């Protein structure tokens, strides 16, 4: 009687699915970044709007072109993932950087960091950080030319480097002068475009944890390791090493922890694996900041842990419900 001539749809169970989608996840991430983006425009001027536009356009165009060359559908650029790459790349660059470099960085990030591996889901390294790593190797001077922020919050103390705009981490490393925590929290300091305003990054990141887009295990272990290890060195020599809290709120740590290390594709998919990733990245950050050649180590800490993520994913296996003890099995 009522069966349609071509038959009903035949698919495997389950026949109902949640509304979660990759697109949804990506756009939620972008939305939670917007407060920090707005703050970056206030601190460093309308010019950074241009940089954001160029960064996102660079990422989208590169993805579309690469996919067309590979004879794949180019409409993946609407999934939000390339847009995040462009946005995050700009947030990690100094405010003085030229739009040409931004475009180049986005192109390299998407091409070398993502499409070469096969596109979304296949890449080993965070594409935005691949772009940044390329730029800082190829254009070291432009990538370390900082600018002093506008005085947006008049209640905050004068920044220690208000004139040169050197980053708090550089001042701490090379001059042993430490920026006030309040300035670090609100971001009225020198630094990369979108990394300075710790408080808005934390709020956005906590929201992502609440909606389970970001794994708390990773963020907690990453930040916790940086704080504890930083505090330990501060205890050993307070004159040379900044406090644990300074380590926590300076540089790109908050942006890195909530928005880059936590990138689903390039971080472990289990809670335990995420915790290992976080501890490893945290140790690397402190070691690079205190003993390396660079004042900041967030980028390399994440890229290095990205490299070991496939191994972590393979070696951390869940204990299955009702799994017997290995010893018991052997006897």
């Amino acid at each position, binding site marked *: 009687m009522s069966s349609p001539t071509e038959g009903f749809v*035949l698919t495997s169970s389950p026949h*109902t699915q949640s509304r979660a989608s990759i697109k949804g996840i990506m756009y939620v991430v972008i939305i939670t970044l917007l407060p920090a983006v707005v703050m970056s425009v206030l601190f460093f001027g309308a010019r950074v709007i241009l940089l954001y536009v160029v960064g996102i356009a660079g990422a989208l165009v590169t993805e579309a072109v690469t996919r067309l060359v590979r004879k794949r559908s180019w409409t993946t650029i609407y999934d939000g993932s390339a847009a995040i790459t462009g946005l995050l790349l700009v947030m990690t660059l100094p405010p003085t950087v030229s739009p040409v470099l931004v475009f180049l960085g986005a192109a390299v990030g998407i091409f070398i960091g993502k499409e070469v591996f096969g596109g979304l889901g296949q890449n080993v390294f965070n594409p935005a950080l691949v772009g940044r790593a390329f730029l800082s190797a190829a254009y070291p001077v432009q990538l370390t030319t900082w600018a002093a922020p506008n005085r947006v919050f008049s209640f905050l103390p004068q920044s220690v480097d208000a004139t040169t705009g050197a980053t708090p981490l550089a001042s701490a490393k090379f001059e042993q002068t430490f920026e006030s925590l309040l300035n670090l929290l609100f971001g009225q300091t020198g630094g990369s475009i979108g990394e300075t305003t710790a408080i808005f990054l934390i709020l956005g990141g906590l929201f992502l944890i609440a909606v389970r887009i970001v794994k708390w295990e990773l963020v907690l272990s990453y930040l916790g390791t940086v704080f504890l290890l930083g505090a330990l060195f501060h205890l050993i020599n307070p004159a040379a090493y900044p406090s644990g809290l300074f380590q926590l709120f300076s540089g790109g740590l908050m942006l890195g922890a909530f928005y880059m290390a936590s990138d689903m594709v390039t971080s472990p998919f289990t809670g335990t694996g995420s915790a290992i990733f976080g501890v490893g990245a945290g140790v690397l950050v402190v070691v690079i900041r205190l003993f390396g050649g660079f004042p900041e180590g967030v980028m390399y800490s994440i890229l290095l842990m990205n490299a070991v993520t496939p191994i972590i994913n393979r070696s951390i296996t869940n204990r299955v419900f009702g799994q017997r003890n290995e010893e018991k099995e052997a006897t």
Partner: protein
Amino acid sequence: MRLKTFKNGVHPGHNKSRTASSAIVDIPLSDTIVLPLSQHLGKPATPLKNKGDEVSVGELVCEAAGLISANIHSPVAGKIKRIIQKPLPGGRMADHMEITVDHEKTAEHRWEKHDVDVASLDRDAVVKTLAAAGIVGMGGATFPTHVKFSPPSTAKIDVLVVNGAECEPYLTCDHRLMLEKTREIMDTLTILQHAYNFSQIIIGIENNKPDAILAFEAVLQDYGHLPASVEPLQVKYPQGAEKMLIHATTGRVVPAGALPLEVGVIVSNVATLYAIYEAFYLDKPLIDRVLTVTGSGISEAKNVRTVVGTPFDTVAEFCGGVDERTNKVVVGGPMMGVAVPTLDYSVAKGTSGMVFLTGIDIPDESPCIKCGKCVEVCPMNLMPLRLAAYAKAGKFADAKALHLADCFECGSCAFGCPAKIQLVAWIRYAKNYVRVKGI
């Protein structure tokens, strides 16, 4: 108080309100019934009758073939038109017995209720009755019930868990049975208690059925001789899965690859318990069942009782017909049920529902972004994304080493997957491969 539950799981929309308060109604007999001869887990039953033979109501027409198998009885009086091969929902071919119904003779038959001397019933008597009546697990797994209730003498069974979770969205047939047949289910528990001497009987019901919880609580005092209690459970899928239900109600963990009896527990679905009641008090074999007919594609959603072998067309017609927008029909619930291409099938002992869905499209699969959602929701704590990746790559031995066999295909992973990857289909593919090739 925090309600008991298990770890992980998902929260699909309930979609139960359309039928939750509609009382069970009988579907009038169709002129022909098509009785599947493979309605249970295990070996298909052996036909005892041939083309042209007359059968009477409740007559044994197929005999259990071997240890794990179940008897099949004719639900009607009539004449066997033919025995044909037809696909079951899911595609497996099986023999079906087509019976032309003699309405007059069928109507003459009455199932008379009589008293049961519970004190005279021991385990052997119970198992014999269950086997004779062809009772199987009616929650959907259709495992022969007499086998479940014949634990080896070494197993010490001390808890009976009554499964009234009904965690599948849309389905309300168990809910209605719990409301309408509360005392009958309790009478069955009395029989089982006498034969098995449980130290605890726990009736597990999800908290979205407060009236069913109340119904049992109200009659508990009349059954003071039973060590029975009602346990309201958190509403979460798959709460009604055997291992999850045992963990929630008793705190016991069934070892991977083992049966509930290893931890001293037997789980029985409320519909099965009601069938056991009929077997003892009416001498009636399992020849009919209650199922939920629902979904946006059916005009009048209902909980119906109908004989096994009723063609799906008859069921759909009784419920006002199928909307032309219907483009998917699921036998069972939407999480674990089976989609069918046409309505050319018939109701079996395990058919808990028919869900007519409209506007279903097949979502495009995106690449896996390794978000770990499937790992987070898996009630067995498996890693579905890795199992599916191994299945796609043909690495079946690797999948097996990652506890492939522990997946019971509840569908939580594929439900939660933002990339819409058909994780269950891939895992099932790997399981079949491992089973067939003996990896």
